[in-house]
């Protein structure tokens, strides 16, 4: 009995912290219809600043407030300085917040270092209450009390005050609210800052449970996201319910099923998504636009001179045209082939890594750029393939490349078929959130399933591919060429797919899914196939990454890997294939250069690039490069005899659109 009560109280106290953490996220999701992925990072700011202020002033309460104010300020700057400029571009806003995660985390690391700090429990709260056999720390009671107090205050604020009513009006109907004279932009900023303030408030308070370290930004984001999805967005009661459920599931899971407790909350999340995607309480979260808004935004984006294919109105491509179109690829391939034997081994290694990441990036581009399925868990596919190679090579002693490569690819395909099936139950921003959850779920499996995966130590000792040719050992140059061949094959396959009828149909789904359905397409199947192909190709990258590092560690599955892939796609130009390839070059080289000159500041630069890309370079590099190249377009030869072939004019280049 005491044991159950204790577990219950542990769950409730954790739930209280989760509530404070998630309240702001729920508010901004309900009102602004965007997911602030940097919410966890803002929570982290609250924890670090709160601890610093406590240490300086010696007062815990001032520390709490200090952390909250700092977090609120970060939120204020984010919203007023950046998010506001992307008004009505929800997906851009979401991507922007990823950039802020990197920046905030790196600045925190810059100031306080990478070593985890420990939270503090003020002396007055450090006692333990004991009644009979039952003992429980006072600090936990304080968390519960404080959490409930804040819940009541927030509820009163949202349900009983005029500002709260205004917020609800904004959630109900933005257009009418604005037309009654309510300045929604100001309201957005205020709510965003308030949500950040509350998250910051619990940074220090929750530190004994959550820790104060650099990982906590991601952990807090995932927890808050799960709470909000379970509870429903936009209502205090929903968030409280979700927080308590997750807190209790976590506490009881850890007490009774310690081995699988880490999965319990993910299982709860997946169940909710499958059966009640709008959450238990609260309003359905949707960024789906009305048809009218869609036409408007589409015409807006189409006006940007990025994606207009060259319309020369000429005949089928002649030899020169074909050469012109292939020339950049042939050129790039020649350069890569020549660089192989020429480069010193350090740079050759770097270039090998570029090519592996390029495979990863172009695979993501099929989903994200062509299919419009923005995934933040793509590293999962790469990771499982890598782990398959690692497990077979290290644990089972299988060395033959011709076994390991297909094994990795098949496992990646299987996993993507399973994950894709569940993820496609939801769309839009929820799709993004579920992919994050799955990515994280697999990362946890890799960490916890020590016997098979080697836990945090990972699997070490994967040797270079054994091609099974007697007397032939693959050196660094040979490995480089093997990766090069893999990239060429993957690129060719994907290129063929995106220029095929299927590829066009996939773009059609991205552009206008309802219309595709009424034109007779089973759009679900189109998307599902895209995810499986994309996951399979990511598996190829995973196999080579395992060989490249000679080891597999859980971080290859983690969210940072996925966001790096996203950045390559966005930077290079989604929906262009060669763009993400360039993105991979820029990101990998950038990382290496920054590691040489400003070690430790790479995430800061990465975050900055992310933000610049989203705000200024919506189409990535690719359209600029391709326009530059089009200046060299040759005069095509005229063809008069078409030999019964229907004359469609010159077949246009399909890569950009």
């Amino acid at each position, binding site marked *: 009995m005491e044991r159950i009560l204790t577990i219950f109280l542990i769950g409730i106290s954790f739930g209280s912290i989760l509530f404070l953490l998630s309240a702001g996220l729920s508010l901004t999701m309900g009102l602004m219809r965007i997911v602030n992925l940097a919410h966890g990072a803002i929570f982290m700011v609250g924890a670090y600043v709160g601890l610093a202020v406590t240490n300086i002033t010696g007062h815990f309460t001032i520390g709490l407030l200090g952390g909250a104010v700092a977090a609120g300020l970060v939120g204020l700057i984010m919203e007023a300085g950046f998010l506001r400029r992307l008004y009505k571009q929800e997906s851009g806003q979401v991507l922007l917040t990823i950039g802020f995660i990197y920046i905030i985390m790196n600045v925190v690391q810059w100031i306080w270092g990478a070593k985890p700090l420990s939270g503090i429990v003020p002396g007055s709260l450090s006692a333990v209450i004991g009644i009979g056999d039952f003992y429980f720390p006072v600090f936990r009671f304080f968390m519960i009390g404080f959490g409930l107090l804040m819940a009541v205050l927030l509820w009163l604020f949202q349900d009983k005050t*005029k500002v709260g*009513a*205004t917020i*609800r*009006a904004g*959630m*109900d*109907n933005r*257009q*009418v*609210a*604005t*037309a*009654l*004279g*309510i*300045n*929604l932009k100001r309201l957005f900023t205020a709510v965003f800052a308030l949500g950040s303030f509350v998250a910051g408030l619990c940074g220090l308070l929750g530190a004994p449970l959550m820790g104060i370290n650099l990982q906590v930004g991601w952990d807090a984001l995932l927890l808050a996201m799960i709470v909000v999805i379970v509870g429903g967005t936009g209502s205090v009661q929903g968030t409280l319910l979700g927080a308590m459920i997750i807190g209790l599931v976590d506490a009881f899971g850890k007490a009774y099923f310690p081995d699988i407790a880490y999965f319990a909350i993910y299982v709860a999340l997946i169940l909710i998504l499958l059966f009640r995607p709008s959450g238990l309480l609260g*309003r359905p979260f949707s960024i789906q636009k009305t048809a*009218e808004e869609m*036409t*408007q935004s*589409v*015409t807006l984006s189409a006006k940007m001179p990025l994606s207009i294919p060259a319309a020369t109105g000429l005949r089928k491509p002649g030899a020169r045209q074909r050469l012109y179109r292939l020339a950049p690829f042939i050129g790039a391939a020649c350069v890569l082939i020549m660089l192989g034997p020429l480069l010193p081994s350090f740079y050759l290694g770097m270039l090998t890594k570029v090519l592996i990441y390029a495979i990863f990036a172009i695979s993501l581009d099929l989903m994200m750029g062509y299919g419009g399925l923005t995934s933040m868990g793509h590293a999962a596919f790469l990771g499982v393939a890598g782990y398959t190679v690692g497990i077979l090579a290290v644990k089972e002693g299988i060395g033959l490349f011709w076994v390991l490569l297909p094994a990795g690819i098949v496992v990646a395909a299987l996993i993507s078929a399973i994950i894709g099936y569940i993820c496609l139950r939801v769309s839009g921003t929820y799709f993004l959130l579920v992919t994050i959850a799955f990515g994280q779920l697999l990362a946890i499996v890799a960490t916890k399933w020590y016997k098979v995966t080697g836990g945090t130590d990972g699997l070490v000792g994967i040797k270079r591919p054994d091609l099974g040719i007697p007397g032939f050992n693959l050196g660094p140059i040979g490995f480089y060429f093997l990766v090069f061949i893999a990239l060429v094959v993957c690129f060719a396959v994907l290129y063929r797919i995106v220029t095929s009828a299927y590829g066009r149909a996939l773009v059609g789904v991205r552009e206008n899914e309802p219309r595709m359905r009424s034109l007779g397409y089973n759009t679900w199947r189109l998307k599902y196939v895209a995810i499986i192909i994309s996951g399979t190709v990511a598996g190829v990258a995973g196999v080579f990454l395992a060989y490249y590092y000679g080891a597999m560690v859980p971080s290859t599955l983690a969210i940072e890997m996925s966001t790096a892939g996203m950045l390559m796609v966005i930077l290079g130009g989604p929906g262009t294939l060669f763009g993400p390839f360039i993105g991979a070059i820029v990101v990998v080289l950038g990382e290496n250069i920054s590691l040489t000159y400003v070690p430790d500041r790479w995430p800061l630069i990465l975050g900055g690039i992310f933000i610049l890309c989203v705000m200024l370079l919506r189409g990535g590099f690719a359209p600029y490069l391709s326009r530059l190249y089009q200046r060299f377009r040759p005069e095509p030869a005229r063809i008069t005899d078409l030999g019964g072939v229907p004359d469609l004019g010159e077949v246009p280049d399909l890569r950009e659109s």
Partner: protein
Amino acid sequence: MLELQNVETFYGERQALFGVSLAVPKGAVVGMLGRNGMGKTTIIRTIMGINPPRRGSVRLNGREIAGLEPDRIARLGIGFVPQGRGIFPSLSVKENLTIAERRNEDGTGWTLEKVYDAFPILKKRQRQYGNLLSGGEQQMLSIARALMTNPDTLLMDEPSEGLAPMVVNDISVIIRELKASHSVLLAEQHMNMALAVADYIYIINKGTVVHESSPEELSNNVDICRRFLGVC
């Protein structure tokens, strides 16, 4: 005085208004009649700034308001009674009114008490949530909510839509009473109601004004009515 001159509005590339000019003098009720889909709602959304015009001018008391944000236009003195009423379902009746509240500088004008006096039914229902009201009550709430902003001009988009004839009468009485203190631009499909309350009528067809006259004149002009409002 609200004035539109040669207003052209587009939805994306689609042109919805083709040079609309009309005027709502101070203290007048001006009716816009026309079949649905002809541009009445677009005119109201254009004035409100929700779909700003691409060409032409919209002036409120001599001041150009085309291109301003909707909330700014509302604060300059335009009250909005949207089509479908636009009641906030998760707000109580009272909250629906108070969030719109904006006092005149001299303290005169509509207050919650005065609105309750004018619409006693809303006072009775003040704790109920907006979506639990009947259609007629919702329409009254929508009008009352617009009054709470103390506008000098009210834009009403099809207040009779979906209401029983009795209730339409009640709404007509309210609009006539408002004439004393406000100018009203009324979009309607319900010809009799518009003829009963308006001082002047514009007929809108396919995004242009095709006829304007006093209500008396219009009710004697069977041909115009049939051509632009009826089925033939």
